[in-house]
């Protein structure tokens, strides 16, 4: 009997040797005369267990991990293909506490299925949302998204339905759907995991968006650092087109939706939507003045929906299960779920999808298992390089856009980077300014010049024998100018990590180095 074995093709799993493990499994099984069907899947999100090998036994998937190529022969000998006992045997993967405590709506299929197998996608509820959408007038599709309470998952948390309605209400003519897949924030990888692990979900979400507002062309603007996602998306788009889920007659509806992946070129600023549009048009990615909004004058001057990967990938489940189903998760004005990424110095790093309302402490300790180094956690940065540093005393904050704003922090794209007590927060503040200087598009002065001057001030603060008090005052002034005078979030939010580090960890700013 053929045994089905699952190994990830996710970039993080490959970075830890999944390709070599898969090859070793194939040859060890051959030697043993055992027939196996090797299915390459996305990642379950338990990165510390990668390469994870799952074996299907009596309809259940038993996990072993981490399995290196060198360890494969021994595991096969021990009876891995029958799900036998072994120190690396984890048990039924769905029942592991890390998995069982999650609420996976957007990531429901990631890690379960072959990402480019359309039949597997369909068998797991795929394209249900689009089928329902095709039976509705555009305005009602938009209404569903509005009613779900979905807010932009890229970081700005702007209500997705309002963006869609604005585009929907523009006069007919060429409109576009653009997916912002320029996931540049450190500590975030949910976009990548979704695109590599369930690309059809993003394709379906974009198709629904196009049908809803009358846009016939979509672009996925993907960062150059994600070659694996590029491969997965292009494979999936080709299959969807061949099978009539994309193209001139989407599922026989007579409606057109075309989709193309465009590669970025290593500019963090392209995560800002107007600079992304400039880049798609083939220009320097300088931020545009607003108004006009992209929803009115976006790509090539036409009405454009521009949404993050996770926002668009959350649309299929909203349409398939109804707005109320999605809205019932969450707290306050933060509805639904958020795919959270645990990164940095954390024992159990990876992806956790939970309804809003979970606390930072639960995420860091119950899911994350504390620091990887075994030392106490001292600070976490949530929301990427423009997110605030949060001290241990605030770990009980609930994941909620408004609760985070109230403590001067932001949820952003849901990336959480953990640091143990060896971190030097003055260096992290300096790095935030240095990063801003490297990535500034140069259009506005507070960001372009302020970031460079900020690095210089930090260098003085960190040195002995300087006028530290005066320099700290200068740093605050500079941050104030950047925050209120910059054209976009890069210059405008770089002060968050800097000032939060200073506020919560002042002792690090008075040390001589």
């Amino acid at each position, binding site marked *: 009997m053929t045994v089905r074995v699952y190994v990830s093709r996710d970039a993080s799993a490959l970075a830890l040797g999944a390709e070599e493990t898969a090859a070793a499994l194939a040859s060890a099984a051959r030697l043993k005369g055992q027939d196996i069907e090797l299915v390459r899947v996305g990642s379950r999100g338990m990165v510390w267990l990668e390469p994870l090998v799952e074996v299907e036994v009596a309809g259940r998937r038993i996990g072993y991990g981490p399995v290196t190529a060198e360890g494969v022969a021994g595991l096969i000998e021990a009876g891995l293909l029958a799900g036998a006992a072994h120190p690396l045997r984890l048990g039924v993967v769905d029942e592991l506490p890390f998995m069982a405590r999650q609420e996976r709506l957007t990531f429901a299929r990631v890690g379960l299925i072959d990402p480019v197998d359309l039949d597997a996608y369909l068998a797991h509820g795929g394209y249900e949302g689009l089928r329902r959408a095709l039976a509705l007038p555009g305005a009602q599709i938009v209404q569903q998204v509005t009613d779900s309470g979905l807010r932009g998952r890229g970081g700005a948390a702007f209500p997705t339905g309002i963006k869609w309605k604005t585009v929907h209400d523009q006069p007919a003519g060429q409109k576009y759907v653009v997916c912002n897949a320029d996931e540049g924030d450190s500590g975030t990888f949910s976009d*990548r995991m979704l695109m590599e692990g369930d690309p059809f979900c993003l394709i379906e979400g974009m198709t629904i968006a196009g049908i809803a507002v009358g846009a016939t062309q979509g672009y996925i603007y993907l960062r150059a650092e994600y070659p694996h996602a590029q491969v997965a998306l292009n494979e999936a788009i080709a299959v969807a087109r061949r099978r009539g889920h994309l193209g001139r007659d989407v599922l026989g509806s007579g409606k057109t939706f075309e989709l193309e992946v465009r590669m970025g070129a290593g500019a963090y600023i392209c995560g800002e939507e107007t600079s992304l549009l400039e880049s798609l048009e083939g220009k320097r990615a300088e931020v545009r003045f607003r108004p006009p909004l992209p929803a009115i004058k976006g790509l090539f001057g036409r009405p454009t929906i521009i949404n993050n990967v996770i926002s668009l990938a959350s649309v299929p489940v909203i349409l398939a299960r109804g707005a109320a189903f999605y809205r019932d998760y969450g707290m306050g004005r933060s509805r639904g779920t958020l795919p959270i990424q645990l990164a940095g110095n954390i024992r159990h790093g990876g992806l956790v999808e939970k309804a809003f309302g979970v606390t930072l402490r639960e995420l860091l300790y119950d899911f994350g298992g504390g620091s990887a180094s075994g030392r106490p956690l001292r600070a976490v*940065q949530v929301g990427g390089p423009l997110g605030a540093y949060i001290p241990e005393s605030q770990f009980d904050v609930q994941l909620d856009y408004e609760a985070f704003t109230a403590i001067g922090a932001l949820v952003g794209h849901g990336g959480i980077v953990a640091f143990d007590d060896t971190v030097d927060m003055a260096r992290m503040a300096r790095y935030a300014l240095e990063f801003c200087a490297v990535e500034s598009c140069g259009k506005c002065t507070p960001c372009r010049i302020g970031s460079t001057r900020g690095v210089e001030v930090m260098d003085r603060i960190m040195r002995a024998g300087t006028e530290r008090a005066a320099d700290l005052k200068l740093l605050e002034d500079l941050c104030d100018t950047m925050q209120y005078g910059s054209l976009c979030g890069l210059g405008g939010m770089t002060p968050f990590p800097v000032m939060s580090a200073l506020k919560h960890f002042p002792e690090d700013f008075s040390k001589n180095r």
Partner: protein
Amino acid sequence: MADFDAQGLATVDRIVAGHADQPGALLPILHGIQQEFGYIPREAVPRIATGLNLSRAEVHGVISFYHYFRQHAPGRHVLQLCRAEACQAVGCEATEAHARQRLGVDYHGTSADGKFTLEAAYCLGNCAAGPSAMIDNKLYGRVTPERLDELLRQWAALQ
């Protein structure tokens, strides 16, 4: 490959023509050229400008804006090291210092033997398994200085 001759120019023209009908064609063209030559040769700029009806300054402005596009030929392999926060939290500075010392260059430099060009990356999306590195298009996790030595040895042996 590095020598830019009539054949090289013909290749550039072919790439430009292949994208001429695409809206916003400049980035796809630059990607195509860099994939072919490893960088964007100076000689390609006027051909792209003519093909897209842009000024040379505009084309140069775009090339120089994006970190990914290089204007000089790189070494045989490009080593990118992530220096973002999540990798800093697990000690990427030690890997960075080791790479600089091993290769004898700073960021954007190419080792004297021409084998590796060192580049900084600001997140490779592998933040739960850092420090992260990428050699050409292959991603690696938990790259300690010792692991980096091993990788450099393997890649240096490749042709």
